[in-house]
C-alpha cells in the first residue's frame, strides 16, 4: 500500500513557516508600476507593458530565504502578496481598513506602505484598465439589461481581475531557454527593419520589441538572484549552506537564459518563468500545465545517473511545491468568497497520455503527489489525468493522496476532455497534450490561450436568475448589489399565465439566448480594449504561435484560442422545470398561478405545497427518466447558446459548469425556486443535483448526472463526491472508490473530486478549528484548509450529499 516517507527537517521548517505566517501586502510591485505609469504617460500599448516588466525585473527585490533551494518571490517577505493596480484599484480603497481583520484570507499592511498607497493610489482611478473598460460597454446594456443577476457586469469596476487562466509553454523554458527567444526576437526585428515596416508591421515590430524587453529582463532578474546567493555565500559561516548557495548562484546564472541540465535546474527555471508570468498579470488561474511531462525527464535522468537520490529528489520536489504554495493574491472581499483559502489557482496537471495515446506516467508524477500528501498541502491544486491505460499504482497513489489531502488531486478523464477539445477545433495530438487550467478547465498545453475564467467575476452565467426572468416577464425578483425592479430580461410573460410546459421551456430558452448574447458582446468589448492596453509579452514569448505570427497572445497570436464561460445552477433549473411539469401540468396539483404566488412569497402561506414538493415529488438526481429529462435541456440550452458566441480572438466561446463557491454567494441573491429551494439558499453545486434531493444513493445520483453530454463543455465540468471514511477503508475500499469513479468516467463524466471525510468531522472542525488546522477539503475547483473557509461555504460543504453505505 502507498505510504508517505518522512519529510526532512528543512522541509518541515518551511512548511511550518507556510502554515504559521500570516500573509502581508507587499508594495514593491505597486511602487514600481505606479511610478512608471505616472512618469511615462507617453508610453502606451505593448511597449508600455514591455517596459514596465523590464523595470520590475531590474528593481524587484531578490529575497533568498534560509533553507531555500529554489528561489523567487514577488515581494520581500515570505508569503507576501503583490498588488496589481493597473488592472483595477478603487476596490482596494473600499476595503483598506478591513484587510487585516476580515474573516476570510486576512492580510497585514504596514502603516508606511498604506500611507504611500493612500498618497498615490487615486492616480489609478482613471488610469487603470477597469476605468477604460467601464467606458466601452454599450449604453443600452446600462439602460436595459444591467442589474439582471444573470450576468455580473456592474456600473463600474468591471475588470477587477485580469485576463487570466492560461499556461505558458514550459518546454521552451526548460529545453531551449529564453535566450533563444531573445535571439529570435532580435533577428525578427532586424529582418523587419531591413525590409522596411509596411502595413501592420509597425505593430508587429513593437511586439518583438516587447518580447526582447521581457526575455532579456527575465534573464537579468534571474541573474540578480544569482548575485544575491553569491552575496549571502560570502558571509555564510555554515559550510554546507555556503556550498548550496554557491550551487544556487551557478544555477541562477545559467537557467532561464540557457537550456536546463538537471532536475534542480528545471524546477528553478519553471518557478522563475511562472513568477514572471505572475508579475506580468496576476495569480489568476495562471497554471503550470503538465509539470511532470516537461520536468520529468530531467528527474529520471538525474536518478538514473546517480546525480540525485530518490530522497534528494523528493526533497527538491517538496521545496518546489512549497514555493508554489507560498504565492497568493489579495482579492476583494467579494472575490475571496469565490475562492477562499489564499488560493491562486496555479494548477499542476499530472499523468495522462502522449500525442500517440500512450500512458506517460513517470517518476515525477508520483513525486508531486507524494509532496502534496506528506505536506498536507491544498495549494497548488493538482489534477490527475486518468484513462484506460493509467497504471494501477497511479490510481492507488491518486486515491490515497485525495483521501489524505481532501480532493487533491482532482481526477480528469482523458477520453471526455480530449473529445471536448477536439470539438473545440483542436487537433487530436494537441488535444491529447491537454492540461487543466485554474480549477478544472481543459486546454491544449503550451499553445492555447485558454482564458477559461473569462475576466474574473464576469464569466459566470447564473441560470436560476435567467429562469426567474423567464417566469416573471423579464424581472429578476432577487435583491443583490445593483439589482433593480425594472425588467432586465426579455418580456416572456409570467408563469401564472402559462398554459403549457412548452411555453415555460420557450421562455427559458429565450432568456438564456438573450443573456449569453450580452455576455459575449460585453466581454468582446472588453477584450478589444484589453488587447490594446494589457498585452502579455511574457506569456507570448513562449506560447506557441505568438513568435511565429508576430502577434501577442491577447491579439490572437497563439496557435489556439478559447474564451470560456461557466454556468451555475444546472440542478436547480433542471429540477424546477421538472417540478413545474410534474405538479402544474402532468399531475395538476396546483395551477401555475398558485405556484407562482408561492415562489413570490418564498413559500409563506404555501407550507403544505413546499413540504409536498420537497418530500413527495420526484426530483432530478434519482435516476428517474421523467424527473431527469430536463437536465439535458438545461445543459444543452446554455452550452449551445454560449458556444454560438465568437470571441475577439476569432474562436468560439466554450461552456463550463463549475461554480467555485459562488453557488453559495449567488444563491444568497436568488429568489425561491420551484425545486423547493427557499430565497437565499445555496444553488446546486457544479453539475450535481440539488442538495439533499438525491435520495436514492450514489448510483442513482451519478446516473442522473450523466444524462447530458459533457464533451459539449470544453470549458470543464465539476462534480464533487463526498464519501464517508467507513465506506472506503483499506485497500479494498480504494479499489471500490476507483470503480465508482471509472463508472462515472466511462459513462461520460469528465471530472471528479473526492472528499473522504465525515460530516461529523467537519462539524467538529467548525467548532474546534484549532484542532483541525490541517484538515484539507475540496471546495470546488480547488481545495482549502477547512478552517480557513467562511462559514456559509463550510455549511454548504457539510450539506452536500454524503455518499456512504
Amino acid at each position, binding site marked *: 500500500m502507498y505510504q508517505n516517507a518522512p519529510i526532512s527537517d528543512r522541509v518541515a521548517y518551511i512548511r511550518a513557516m507556510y502554515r504559521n505566517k500570516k500573509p502581508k501586502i507587499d508594495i514593491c510591485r505597486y511602487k514600481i508600476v505606479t511610478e512608471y505609469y505616472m512618469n511615462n504617460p507617453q508610453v502606451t500599448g505593448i511597449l508600455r507593458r514591455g517596459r514596465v516588466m523590464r523595470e520590475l525585473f531590474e528593481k524587484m527585490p531578490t529575497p533568498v530565504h534560509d533553507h531555500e533551494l529554489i528561489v523567487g518571490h514577488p515581494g520581500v517577505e515570505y508569503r507576501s502578496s503583490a498588488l496589481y493596480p493597473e488592472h483595477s484599484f478603487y476596490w482596494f480603497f473600499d476595503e483598506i481598513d478591513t484587510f487585516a481583520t476580515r474573516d476570510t484570507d486576512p492580510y497585514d499592511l504596514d502603516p508606511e506602505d498604506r500611507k504611500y498607497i493612500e498618497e498615490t493610489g487615486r492616480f489609478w482611478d482613471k488610469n487603470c484598465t477597469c476605468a477604460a473598460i467601464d467606458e466601452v460597454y454599450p449604453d443600452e446594456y446600462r439602460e436595459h439589461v444591467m442589474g439582471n443577476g444573470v450576468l455580473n457586469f456592474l456600473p463600474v469596476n468591471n475588470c477587477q481581475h485580469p485576463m487570466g487562466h492560461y499556461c505558458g509553454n514550459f518546454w521552451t523554458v526548460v529545453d531551449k531557454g529564453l535566450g533563444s527567444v531573445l535571439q529570435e526576437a532580435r533577428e525578427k526585428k532586424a529582418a523587419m527593419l531591413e525590409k522596411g515596416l509596411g502595413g501592420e508591421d509597425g505593430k508587429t515590430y513593437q511586439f518583438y520589441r516587447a518580447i526582447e524587453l521581457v526575455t532579456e529582463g527575465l534573464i537579468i532578474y534571474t541573474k540578480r538572484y544569482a548575485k544575491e546567493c553569491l552575496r549571502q555565500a560570502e558571509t555564510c559561516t555554515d559550510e554546507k549552506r555556503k556550498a548550496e548557495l554557491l550551487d544556487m548562484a551557478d544555477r541562477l546564472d545559467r537557467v532561464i537564459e540557457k537550456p536546463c541540465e538537471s532536475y534542480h535546474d528545471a524546477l528553478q527555471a519553471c518557478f522563475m518563468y511562472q513568477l514572471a508570468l505572475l508579475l506580468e498579470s496576476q495569480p489568476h488561474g495562471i497554471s503550470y500545465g503538465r509539470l511532470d511531462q516537461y520536468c520529468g525527464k530531467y528527474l529520471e535522468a538525474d536518478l538514473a545517473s546517480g546525480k540525485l537520490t530518490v530522497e534528494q529528489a523528493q526533497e527538491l520536489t517538496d521545496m518546489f511545491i512549497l514555493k508554489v504554495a507560498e504565492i497568493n493574491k489579495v482579492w476583494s472581499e467579494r472575490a475571496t468568497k469565490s475562492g477562499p483559502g489564499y488560493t491562486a489557482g496555479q494548477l499542476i496537471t499530472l499523468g495522462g497520455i502522449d500525442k500517440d495515446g500512450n500512458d506517460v506516467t513517470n517518476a515525477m508524477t508520483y513525486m508531486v503527489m507524494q509532496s502534496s500528501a506528506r505536506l498536507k498541502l491544498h495549494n497548488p491544486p493538482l489534477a490527475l489525468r486518468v484513462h484506460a491505460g493509467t497504471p494501477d499504482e497511479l490510481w492507488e497513489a491518486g486515491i490515497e493522496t485525495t483521501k489524505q489531502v481532501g480532493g487533491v488531486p482532482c481526477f480528469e478523464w482523458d477520453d471526455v476532455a480530449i473529445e471536448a477539445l477536439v470539438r473545440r477545433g483542436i487537433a487530436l495530438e494537441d488535444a491529447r497534450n491537454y492540461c487543466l487550467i485554474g480549477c478544472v478547465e481543459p486546454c491544449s498545453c503550451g499553445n492555447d490561450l485558454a482564458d477559461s475564467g473569462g475576466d474574473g467575476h464576469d464569466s459566470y452565467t447564473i441560470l436560476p436568475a435567467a429562469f426567474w426572468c423567464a417566469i416573471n416577464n423579464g424581472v429578476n425578483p432577487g435583491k443583490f448589489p445593483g439589482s433593480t425592479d425594472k425588467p432586465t430580461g426579455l418580456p416572456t410573460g409570467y408563469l401564472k399565465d402559462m398554459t403549457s410546459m412548452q411555453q415555460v421551456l420557450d421562455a427559458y430558452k429565450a432568456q438564456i439566448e438573450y443573456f449569453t448574447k450580452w455576455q459575449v458582446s460585453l466581454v468582446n468589448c472588453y477584450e478589444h480594449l484589453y488587447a490594446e492596453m494589457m498585452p502579455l509579452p511574457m506569456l507570448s514569448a513562449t506560447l506557441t504561435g505568438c513568435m511565429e505570427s508576430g502577434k501577442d497572445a491577447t491579439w490572437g497570436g497563439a496557435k489556439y484560442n478559447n474564451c470560456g464561460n461557466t454556468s451555475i445552477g444546472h440542478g436547480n433549473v433542471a429540477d424546477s422545470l421538472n417540478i413545474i411539469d410534474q405538479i402544474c401540468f402532468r399531475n395538476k396539483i396546483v395551477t401555475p398561478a398558485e405556484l407562482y404566488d408561492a415562489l413570490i412569497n418564498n413559500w409563506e402561506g404555501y*407550507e403544505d405545497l413546499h413540504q409536498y414538493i420537497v418530500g413527495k415529488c420526484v426530483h432530478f438526481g434519482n435516476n428517474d427518466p421523467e424527473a431527469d429529462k430536463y437536465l439535458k435541456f438545461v445543459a444543452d440550452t446554455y452550452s449551445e447558446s454560449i458556444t454560438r458566441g465568437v470571441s475577439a480572438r476569432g474562436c468560439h466561446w466554450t461552456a463550463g459548469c463549475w461554480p467555485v463557491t459562488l453557488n453559495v454567494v449567488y444563491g444568497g441573491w436568488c429568489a425561491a425556486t420551484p425545486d423547493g429551494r427557499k430565497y437565499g439558499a445555496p444553488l446546486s453545486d457544479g453539475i450535481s443535483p440539488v442538495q439533499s434531493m438525491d435520495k436514492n444513493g450514489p448510483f442513482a445520483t451519478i446516473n442522473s448526472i450523466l444524462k447530458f453530454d459533457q464533451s459539449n463543455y470544453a470549458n470543464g465540468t465539476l462534480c464533487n463526491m463526498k464519501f464517508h471514511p467507513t465506506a472506503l477503508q483499506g485497500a479494498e475500499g480504494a479499489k471500490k472508490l476507483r470503480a465508482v469513479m471509472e463508472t462515472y468516467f466511462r459513462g461520460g463524466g469528465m471530472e471528479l473530486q473526492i472528499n473522504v471525510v465525515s460530516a461529523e468531522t467537519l462539524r467538529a472542525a467548525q467548532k474546534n478549528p484549532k484542532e483541525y488546522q490541517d484538515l484539507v477539503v475540496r471546495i470546488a475547483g480547488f481545495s482549502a484548509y477547512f478552517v480557513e473557509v467562511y462559514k456559509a461555504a463550510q455549511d454548504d460543504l457539510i450539506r452536500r450529499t454524503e455518499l456512504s453505505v
Partner: protein
Amino acid sequence: MITGRLYDIQGFSVQDGPGIRTTAFLKGCPLRCPWCHSPESQAFYKQLSWMSMRCLGLDACRSRCVSACPKGAIEEGEKRVDVATGDELRMVHVKRDLCDNCGACADKCYAEALTLCGKDYTPDELVARLLQDKNFFDTSGGGVTISGGEPLSQIDFVEAVLKGLKENGIHVALDTTGFAPWEALERTLPYVDLYLYDLKHMDSAKHEATVGVPNERIKENAKLLAEAGKSLQVRIPVIPMFNDDEENIRATAEFCAKLGEAVVLVQLLPYHNMGVMKYLRISDGKPLEATPPSDEKMEKLRDLMASYGLNVTIH
C-alpha cells in the same frame, strides 16, 4: 401476476459480496433473531414506520397525519428541538395497538417521517430497477445481492428475478438464513453465483430457543449446496452470550471445514447495536441490547476459526 415485497434497495453495497453491489432486501423472515439490525425485515406485511428525525412537528404540517388516520392511532407525542432552528417541535406517537398499517397517514406525511415500509414489485420491475446500476457492476466486478428478510420465503418471485438477472449476465449473490425447504434452494441453483449463508449456532436447541427455529434444515441445506458444487460465503453474526463461546465457534469451524472447498470465505460479523433505534420506528419496544464484542475477542475467534484451514475475515 407474481409480485414480491421489498423493504429496501441499496446501491453502493460494499460488504455483501465481491465488487460494488446493489442489494435488494426482501421483506419477511421466518426467524426472529433478537439482535436483528433490520427489524422491518421480519414481518411479511407492510408496516408503518416513523422516523422522528424527519418529523416537522404538528404545527408545521398542521396535523395532517392525525386527521388522516381513520383509526385514531396517531396522537401527539414527545417534543424535540430542531437542530437547525432551535424550535421545539411537537412530534407524533403511533398507537401501535390501533394502527392497522393502512398507510393513510403516510400519504399525507410530506416530510416522509411516516412511511409505509414495504413496496411490491413484479419481477420485471425489480430486474429493470437493478439493471439501472449495471454500469457500476461492470467496472467493479460487482453485481446484485438478493437479501432479506429471507428471500427464499418468496421463492416464486425470487426465481423469476434471478432468471432475469442471469439473462443479463449479472453476478448474483443470495443472502439466506438457509431456513427453507431444499426444493426452494434447489430452484435457485442455476442462477446464483455465490451464497451468503448465515450460521448462527451449531446447537439446534439453543438455536431454536433464541431465534425460534431449529437448525437441522439449515445445516442440511448447506451440505446440499456444497454437494451441488456451489460457493458459500459463510456469515456468522457474533452475538455476546449466545454464540461467541469457544465451543460453538469450534463446532462451526468444524462444520465449515467439512463443507470443503465450497466455503470460499467465512465472515465474522461482530454484533453492533446500530439497529436498536430502528425498532422504535416500527414498534414501541426495543430489542435486547448487548455490548459489542471487543476487537481482541473478534481477532481471537478469527484466529481460532482460521486454525481449521478456513479463510476468515472480520466484517
